[in-house]
């Protein structure tokens, strides 16, 4: 071992005297030769003979020096370095080839890295805690009407009982989530998402503090510990809001009008237990009493749900834990779930379930995006494969043009493996550059991609940073691609036969590569499907966005003040909204303002059944109408025209009056005038009071849930006390900034203790509601472009090598009198044949694709002739350009040159 180390040192030292080494060897050998020659001379040889014999007996001096040098050098490394430098030289010589190959691979690897980073960051990452595989979460899972069976956790009181009873876990902890008001750096009150774990929760996870301490059981007591409530900051929040102040411990923080003391900071890698939803602050679970204004969470009258996470005892499986839960389930549900908390059907069918929490509590993101992301991952993997095949084809064509060089090298004694290795090194250089470029692109592109999934305001950013695993995967894909695209050319290079090749350049010609040939039409087919889909989807998006929505969508800023958290209730709360609206309308820049319950373009709306009362009697049939509660000035602010009657006034605050839209009015009352008639709801769950209301106005039709759907029949009521009082302000102004400034001023005057929440414009809301459509459209455009590029590249590679192979054949044709134009045509025909086969295949592929995207198309036929012609035309142009370069090369073949080499 020591000896080897010393040898290694000697080898390294050798590199410092490398230049001297050869010279010294030569001198030493010269000395030997001269001595020998002298001896020969004394033995009676002539001087010439003496030198010659000495030399002959000595052997090949150069080879011997080389051999001596190799003893010292790191051989494989040196050869690699040689190959590497040679590769760089070769690649510099053909920059177009190099650039194309690198860019292609960069696109492939970049797309893979981007998607994988997202997938990994959002879904595949385990919590950065102690032995995450042992963690498990407990949930009541059952059908909840109107929503998917979201995981809601279990009631707090049930959790406490369960924690005492259970035997499967070393300990159980509970997590709750809430919004609190905290002043930001500028002193403006804002709402932040906080996590409220039980005192033992960090211990159960095994998280260690970055600074100070984390929460402990003594923090989590009713009414708070005697020193006041403690708060733990997340690393991100500490860094952003407090500039990473190292003296933060012991500072005070006002949280929803309560003073808390900062006791610690969580480590940067710990982002809470909800993947994709980073938290800012951790407070003890008992802090909920402050937030909901109750003194005791344990009272049966308080319905608080929490999300339990426990650490399974060693050797206990999830199945065993589930079996244990099944025993407790009936008694727990009987005691702690009451029908006034949840739906009766939920109680009947619910099950207490234990599942793995190695990745935290799971989040809405998983349900919504896991599948599309996985699908996309598969897609980009296929794209990478295509990229490899194409670059491989491109390299193959360089093997043909360089086969002379290889033959010469081989004739001079290069081994096959050496040539193969040379090519692999070249491939590796390309792959590494592609991977680097791709990773860099993915790094920046990820933010864009992420914006489709998560509100930019909520991106703490940290959790989708590429990490070790992502880096590993990228490097791995670089190596893999090297093997994939480099193997075939390398093998061919190694197989160059010096004898036949040096004699004739056509030796490799004539062999058809069927696989390579089949690949081009397949890629063309793929391009047809993707490009046509991209065209259809883009057109749909344009049409949706330019669609008449029935109101003036521009220049409206919206914000939801969360006034329902204030102590004011009932009429006082409605007064508050009205005062805000009045004040807003006085402020400069605000043309009009209003409050409303639902805003349009959120992909959701409220519906209920109603009956028209004609002549005092209910009409026999139910009509399902969309409905909304809107404040005075709503129609004015939205610029929805009032066709008859009037809109609501400020003294109208219950559902005794209503406004119908045009289609609702004509549906309910047919040809008769609707004004003055009555409508009654017969939906007791939604409208328990069920009173009849008088129609006071008819408004123009306006779209409601999304721009994709046509305007529903809608009934509008005035804002009223019955629906909880969480409304949204609409402000019409020239710019969003004006509206924001005015709102902040009005809020400071009228409700200073309310946090400032995010603002959006209706246009943004509409764009967000089209998020998935935009994502898919963008993806289809990207992939369409890529597919187009790849098929051009594939064709180019194929034709180039075919032209190179057929050089002498073409030479003979020209020598025999073929027109250059005919040669050009010959190559282009070959391209057209491949194109035609591809388009034929592509129309089948398109038929299948159209089924998939049919639901996303809007106002356009899936077989829109313009799009189809444009697709084929575009494809034809790209293919012809790609074919033209090798075709021109073929036409430029000099017959004399081509035949002389024969």
């Amino acid at each position: 071992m020591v000896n080897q180390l010393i040898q290694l040192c000697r080898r390294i030292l050798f590199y410092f005297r490398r230049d001297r080494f050869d010279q010294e060897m030569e001198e030493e050998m010269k000395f030997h030769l001269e001595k020998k020659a002298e001896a020969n001379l004394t033995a009676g040889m002539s001087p010439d003979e003496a030198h010659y014999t000495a030399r002959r007996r000595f052997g090949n001096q150069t080879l011997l020096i080389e051999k001596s040098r190799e003893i010292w050098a790191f051989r494989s490394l040196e050869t690699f370095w040689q190959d590497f430098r040679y590769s760089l030289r070769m690649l510099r010589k053909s920059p177009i080839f190099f650039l194309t190959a690198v860019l292609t691979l960069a696109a492939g690897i970049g797309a893979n890295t981007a998607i994988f980073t997202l997938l990994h960051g959002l879904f595949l990452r385990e919590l950065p805690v102690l032995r995450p595989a042992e963690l498990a979460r407990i949930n009541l899972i059952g059908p909840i009407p109107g929503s998917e069976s979201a995981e809601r956790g279990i009631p707090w009181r049930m959790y406490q009982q369960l924690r005492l009873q259970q035997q499967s876990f070393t300990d159980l902890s509970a997590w709750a989530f809430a919004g609190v008001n905290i002043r930001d750096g500028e002193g403006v009150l804002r709402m932040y998402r906080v996590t409220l774990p039980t005192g033992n929760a960090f211990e159960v996870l095994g998280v260690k503090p970055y600074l100070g301490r984390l929460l402990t059981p003594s923090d989590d007591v009713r009414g708070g510990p005697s020193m006041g409530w403690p708060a733990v900051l997340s690393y991100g929040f500490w860094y952003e809001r407090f500039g990473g102040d190292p003296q933060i411990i012991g500072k005070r923080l006002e949280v929803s009008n309560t003073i808390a003391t900062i006791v610690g900071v969580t480590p940067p890698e710990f982002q809470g237990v909800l993947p994709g939803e980073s938290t800012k602050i951790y407070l003890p679970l008992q802090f909920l009493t402050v937030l909901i204004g109750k003194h005791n969470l344990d009272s049966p009258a308080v319905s608080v749900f929490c999300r339990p996470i426990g650490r399974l005892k060693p050797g206990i499986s999830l199945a065993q834990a589930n079996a244990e839960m099944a025993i407790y389930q009936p008694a727990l549900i009987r005691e702690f779930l009451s029908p006034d908390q949840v739906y009766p059907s939920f109680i009947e069918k619910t099950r207490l379930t234990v599942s793995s929490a190695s990745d935290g509590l799971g989040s809405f993101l998983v349900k919504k995006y896991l599948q599309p992301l996985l699908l996309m991952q598969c897609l980009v993997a296929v794209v990478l494969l295509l990229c490899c095949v194409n670059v491989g084809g491109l390299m193959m064509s360089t093997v043909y043009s360089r086969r002379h060089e290889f033959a010469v090298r081989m004739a001079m004694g290069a081994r096959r493996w050496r040539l193969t290795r040379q090519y692999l090194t070249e491939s590796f250089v390309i792959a590494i550059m592609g991977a680097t470029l791709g990773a860099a692109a993915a790094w920046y592109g990820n933010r864009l991609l992420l914006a489709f999934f998560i509100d930019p305001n909520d991106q703490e950013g940290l959790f989708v940073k590429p990490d070790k695993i992502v880096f590993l995967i990228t490097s791995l894909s670089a190596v893999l691609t090297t093997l994939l695209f480099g193997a075939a050319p390398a093998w061919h290079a190694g197989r160059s036969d010096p004898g036949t090749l040096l004699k004739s350049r056509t030796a490799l010609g004539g062999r058809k590569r069927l696989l390579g040939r089949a690949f081009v039409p397949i890629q063309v087919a793929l391009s047809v499907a993707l490009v046509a889909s991209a065209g259809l989807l883009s057109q749909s998006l344009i049409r949706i966005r330019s669609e008449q929505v029935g109101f003036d969508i521009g220049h409206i800023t919206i914000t939801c003040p969360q006034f329902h958290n204030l102590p004011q209730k009932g009429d006082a709360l409605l007064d508050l909204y009205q005062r805000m609206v009045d004040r807003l309308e006085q402020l400069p820049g605000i043309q009009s303002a209003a409050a409303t319950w639902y805003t349009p373009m959120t992909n959701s709306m409220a519906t209920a059944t109603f009956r028209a009362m004609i002549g005092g009697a209910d009409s026999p049939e139910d009509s399902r109408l969309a409905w909304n509660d809107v404040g005075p000035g709503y129609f004015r602010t939205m610029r929805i025209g009032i066709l008859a009657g009037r809109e609501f006034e400020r003294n109208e605050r219950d559902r005794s009056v209503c406004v119908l839209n045009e289609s609702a009015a004509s549906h309910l009352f047919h040809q008769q005038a609707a004004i003055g008639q009555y409508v009654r709801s017969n939906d007791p769950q939604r409208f328990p009071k069920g009173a009849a209301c008088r129609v006071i106005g008819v408004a123009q039709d306006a779209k409601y849930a999304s721009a994709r759907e046509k305007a529903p029949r809608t009934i509008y009521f005035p804002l009223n006390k019955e629906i909880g009082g969480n409304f949204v302000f609409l402000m019409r102004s020239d710019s969003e900034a004006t509206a924001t400034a005015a709102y902040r001023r009005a809020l400071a005057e009228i409700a200073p203790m309310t946090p400032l929440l995010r603002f959006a414009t209706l246009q943004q809301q509409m764009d967000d509601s089209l998020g998935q459509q935009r994502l898919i459209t963008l993806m289809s455009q990207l992939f369409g472009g890529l597919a187009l590029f790849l098929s051009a590249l594939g064709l180019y590679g194929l034709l180039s090598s075919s032209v190179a192979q057929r050089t002498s054949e073409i030479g003979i044709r020209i020598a025999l009198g073929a027109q250059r134009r005919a040669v050009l045509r010959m190559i282009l025909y070959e391209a057209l044949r491949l194109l035609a086969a591809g388009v034929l295949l592509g129309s089948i592929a398109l038929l299948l694709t159209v089924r998939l995207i049919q639901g996303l198309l809007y106002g356009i036929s899936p077989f829109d002739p313009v799009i189809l012609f444009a697709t084929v035309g575009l494809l034809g142009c790209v293919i012809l350009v790609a074919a033209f370069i090798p075709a021109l090369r073929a036409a430029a073949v000099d017959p004399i040159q081509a035949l002389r080499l024969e």
Partner: protein
Amino acid sequence: MLILKSLDRSAEPMHGYGIYLYLKQISQDVIQVEEGSLYPALQRLALKGWVKAEWGQSENNRRARFYKLTPAGRKQLKQEFADFERVLEAIMRVMQST
């Protein structure tokens, strides 16, 4: 081993040609190899640290590289010689037993 041995026999450091002459003489021309292959062999020994090379003046005042056995080289020679003897002994025993 032969190179090491020839260096061991000589008290003075030897140059390559000297080693060649010595080998030629004691083996009485039995060993016939390319003379030059001596030099890569010497380099291999130098890398292993068994010989040390230094430039010096030859008999007729020409610059030449002289090789000297190092303590490690001496140890190696002893080891190799012991191994060689053992093998030889074994072969002899087999040959004599018939």
